[in-house]
C-alpha cells in the first residue's frame, strides 16, 4: 500500500497560504514571495503586525519595533506576489498537499477600501468608543478605526459592536422599547470620498494553494484567571506595560498608573504568573518573560530614574545570544531581583502591597509599591482550536500545534503541505519566530521546487 502511494505523483498549485500576520507569518510570506511564488496572507484583525508591533522596545538590542518592523509590513502590502487579506478568517479547508481548497471569510469593513484614502477624518470625529486592542485596553479607540498609526493597511474598518449607527439600525429593526439611540452616521457625512458603505456584506474568497503556513501566534492568559488578581487597575500584564513604555503609546512613553495617572515610584514585576504552575495555569515555561521583565525594568528605570524596580523570579531563564549579559546589565543598573514567589497582592489605600518570599535570605518580603506587572503565561491564540481541526493538524495538551518531529521536523505538521511557525508551535521569542518563519518558507519552497508532488515519507521516530 505504501509503495502504491509513493508512485502517485500529481501537479500542484504553486501558491502558498500563510495564516497569521505577526512577525512569523510576515517573514514566511516575504521569503516565499521573494523566491517568486504567490502568497495569500490572511490576518484576522484589521492590520498585520501581530504582537511584536505592540512592544516598546525589543530585547536584547532595544530596537524599536515600530522602526524595524514597519518596513517589513509595508513590504508585505506592496509586494507584487503577496495578496494580503486583513480582517479575514479561514473558514474552510479541503483537499491535500498541492491542492488545498481554501474558503476565506472577508469580514465586512463597512468601508470601501478601493475609495478610501486613509485620510483619518472619520476616526477623528467618531463618537463610538471601545477598548483599544492595540493598547491592550490601556486606552480607547473609536468605533471606526485603524488599530494603530502604522497599521497596514492604513484604512479603517467599522467595529459593528460599538458603532452608534449600527446600534440605531438594530434598534429600529427590532422596534425595541426604550430610548432611541442617535442615528450618528458622522463618518459617512465627513468622508470626502464617500467610502462608507453600510450595505457592504461579508464575502467568501476562494483560493487554491499548494502549501499552508500556520502562524497564528498567542494570547496572554487573562489576568482574572489568576485567583485574586485582575481586579485592580494598577495590576497590569506585560503587554499593557509595554504600551505604557512605548513612545507611541497612550501616555507617549510616560509611565503612569492607570488608576490616578501618577508616576509609579516603585514597580514590582512578577514572573511565572500562570506559567510553571499547573495548579493555577499551565505546566510549561513561557520562555520570554524573564527577558521582557528584565527589559521592562530597565526601560522603567530609564523613564523614572529615581524609581525602583523589583523582579520576583523562580529562576531566570536567559537562553539566547546576549541574553544573560542583558539581564546582568539590568541588575547593574539597579533592578532588584528577589528569588521567590509572591503569595498575594492587595491594595493598601493608594499603594499596592506585595507579599512574597526571598528564598535566598529565607525571609518574608513585603513591598509597598505603586504598580504591579504580571508576566502572564503565553497561551495559543484564542479561538484557533477550530482552525486547527479544519486543517486537520494536531495540537498538544496546551493547544500548541504539534510538529511532526521535535528535533528534525520542527516546521512540519503531521499533515503533508501544512507547516507551522512562531508561537503557534510553542512559546518563543522574536528571533526564533523569525527563524521558524523562514524555515517554514524554506519547506514550502522545497515543495514548490518539485514539478510534481510525491507524498512525504512517514517520519521515523
Amino acid at each position: 500500500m505504501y509503495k502504491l502511494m509513493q508512485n502517485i505523483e500529481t501537479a500542484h498549485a504553486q501558491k502558498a497560504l500563510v495564516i497569521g500576520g505577526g512577525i512569523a507569518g510576515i517573514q514566511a510570506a516575504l521569503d516565499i514571495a521573494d523566491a517568486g511564488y504567490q502568497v495569500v496572507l490572511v490576518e484576522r484583525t484589521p492590520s498585520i503586525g501581530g504582537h511584536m508591533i505592540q512592544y516598546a522596545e525589543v530585547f536584547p538590542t532595544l530596537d524599536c519595533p515600530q522602526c524595524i518592523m514597519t518596513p517589513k509590513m509595508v513590504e508585505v502590502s506592496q509586494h507584487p506576489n503577496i495578496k494580503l487579506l486583513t480582517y479575514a478568517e479561514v473558514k474552510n479547508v479541503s483537499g491535500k498537499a498541492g491542492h488545498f481548497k481554501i474558503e476565506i471569510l472577508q469580514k465586512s469593513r463597512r468601508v470601501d477600501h478601493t475609495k478610501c484614502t486613509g485620510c483619518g477624518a472619520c476616526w477623528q470625529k467618531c463618537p463610538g468608543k471601545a477598548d483599544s486592542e492595540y493598547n491592550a485596553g490601556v486606552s480607547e479607540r473609536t468605533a471606526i478605526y485603524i488599530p494603530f498609526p502604522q497599521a497596514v493597511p492604513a484604512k479603517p474598518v467599522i467595529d459593528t459592536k460599538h458603532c452608534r449607527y449600527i446600534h440605531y439600525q438594530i434598534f429600529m429593526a427590532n422596534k425595541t422599547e426604550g430610548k432611541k439611540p442617535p442615528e450618528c452616521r458622522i463618518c459617512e457625512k465627513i468622508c470626502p470620498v464617500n467610502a462608507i458603505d453600510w450595505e457592504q456584506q461579508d464575502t467568501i474568497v476562494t483560493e487554491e494553494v499548494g502549501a499552508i503556513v500556520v502562524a497564528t501566534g498567542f494570547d496572554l492568559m487573562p489576568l482574572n484567571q489568576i485567583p485574586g488578581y485582575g481586579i485592580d487597575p494598577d495590576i497590569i500584564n506585560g503587554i499593557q506595560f509595554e504600551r505604557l513604555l512605548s513612545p507611541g503609546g497612550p501616555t507617549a512613553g510616560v509611565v503612569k498608573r492607570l488608576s490616578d495617572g501618577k508616576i509609579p515610584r516603585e514597580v514590582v514585576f512578577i514572573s511565572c504568573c500562570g506559567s510553571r504552575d499547573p495548579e493555577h495555569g499551565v505546566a510549561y515555561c513561557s520562555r520570554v518573560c524573564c527577558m521582557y521583565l528584565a527589559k521592562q525594568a530597565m526601560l522603567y528605570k530609564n523613564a523614572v530614574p529615581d524609581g525602583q524596580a523589583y523582579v520576583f523570579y523562580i529562576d531566570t531563564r536567559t537562553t539566547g545570544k546576549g541574553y544573560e549579559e542583558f539581564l546582568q546589565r539590568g541588575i547593574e543598573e539597579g533592578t532588584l531581583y528577589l528569588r521567590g514567589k509572591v503569595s498575594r497582592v492587595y491594595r493598601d489605600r493608594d499603594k499596592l502591597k506585595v507579599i512574597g518570599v526571598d528564598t535566598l535570605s529565607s525571609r518574608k518580603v513585603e513591598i509597598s509599591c505603586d504598580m504591579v506587572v504580571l508576566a502572564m503565561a503565553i497561551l495559543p491564540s484564542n479561538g484557533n482550536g477550530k482552525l486547527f481541526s479544519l486543517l486537520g493538524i494536531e495540537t498538544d495538551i496546551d493547544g500548541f500545534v504539534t510538529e511532526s518531529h521535535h528535533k528534525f521536523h520542527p516546521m512540519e505538521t503531521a499533515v503533508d503541505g501544512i507547516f507551522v511557525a512562531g508561537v503557534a508551535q510553542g512559546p518563543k521569542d522574536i528571533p526564533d519566530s523569525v527563524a521558524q518563519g523562514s524555515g517554514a518558507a524554506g519547506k514550502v519552497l522545497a515543495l514548490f521546487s518539485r514539478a510534481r508532488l510525491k507524498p512525504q515519507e512517514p517520519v521515523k521516530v
Partner: protein
Amino acid sequence: MELSYYPGCTIKTRARNFEDSAMAVLHELGVNMVELPRWNCCGTVYSLADDDLVHHIASVRNLMHVRKQGHEKVVTLCAFCYNTLHRANDIMRDNAEKRFAINSFMDEEAAYEGQVSVSHLLQVLRDDIGLEKISAKVQKPLDGLKIASYYGCTLLRPKSAAIDNPENPTILQSLVKALGGTPIEFPFATECCGSFQVVDNRDFVNERAYEIINSAVKNGAEAIIVSCPLCEFNLRQAQVKLKQKYTDFKGLPILYFTQIMALSFGLDIKINDFELNSTETQEWLKKEKLVV
C-alpha cells in the same frame, strides 16, 4: 429539613454563644439539627504527617457515628472541626491504602468508605436554605452596619476542603448583604489568625490580630464576623494586650455570623449569650442600639 449536627468541644464550652445563636436561627429557618449521639473530639488538627494514621481515628469514628445515625451528611459550626472531619473523610473516600489500614485498626466498627459528606453551616445556609429565604426572615435589617467578614484559614484551605473560592471568598459578605448590612472587603479576610500558636506564642498571635483588625478598620469596618471559635478567641483576647501596646489601636467588636443573624431576625436577645463576647463588643451593641 433534618440535619445531623456535630458540635465539637469548644462549641459546648467557650463558644456557647455560637451554638445557641445558630440553633435559634436554624429553628427559625425550619431546620431540625439532630446532635450526633456519642460524638467525640474531631481530632482538633488534621495531621499532615503521611503515616500518622492514628491521628485520623477520632474523626473517622465520628463519621461512622453519622452513618449509624442514618445520615449521609453532617454539619459543623466550628470551622476547625469542619476542616479536620472533611479532610479525614477525603482520605477514607479517596485513598484505598490508608482506608484499609484505618478500617483494619478500627475493626470493632463496620468498615467506613467516606460515604458521609461533611458540610459547614455556611454551606447549608447558602446551598440548602438559600440566602433569599434568609433575607425573608429579617425583621430588623442591619441597616448601614459596616461588617468585615473574616474567614481565617480552615474554611478555605486546602482547596479540596474550601467551602468557597479559596482566594476570593464571598459567602459571608453575601450573608451580610442578605441581612441588610454593608459588607466590607479587606485584604486580610483569609489571613491566618495564628491559630493554636496562641498556646505557646501569644505575641505572635497578637501581632497577627493587630494586622487583621487594623486592616478591617482601615477599610471602614465597624465590626468583624467570624465562623471559627479559635479565630474569635484569638481576635478577642489579643485586643486586650494590643490596646496596652499600641496607644492608637482602637480594636473592633468580634461576633459570630450566627449572632448577627439572630439580631437581624429579631430573636430573643438572650440566645446570643453576649456575655461570652468581650465587654467592648457588648458596649458597641448597646451603642448601635442592637441590644436595648
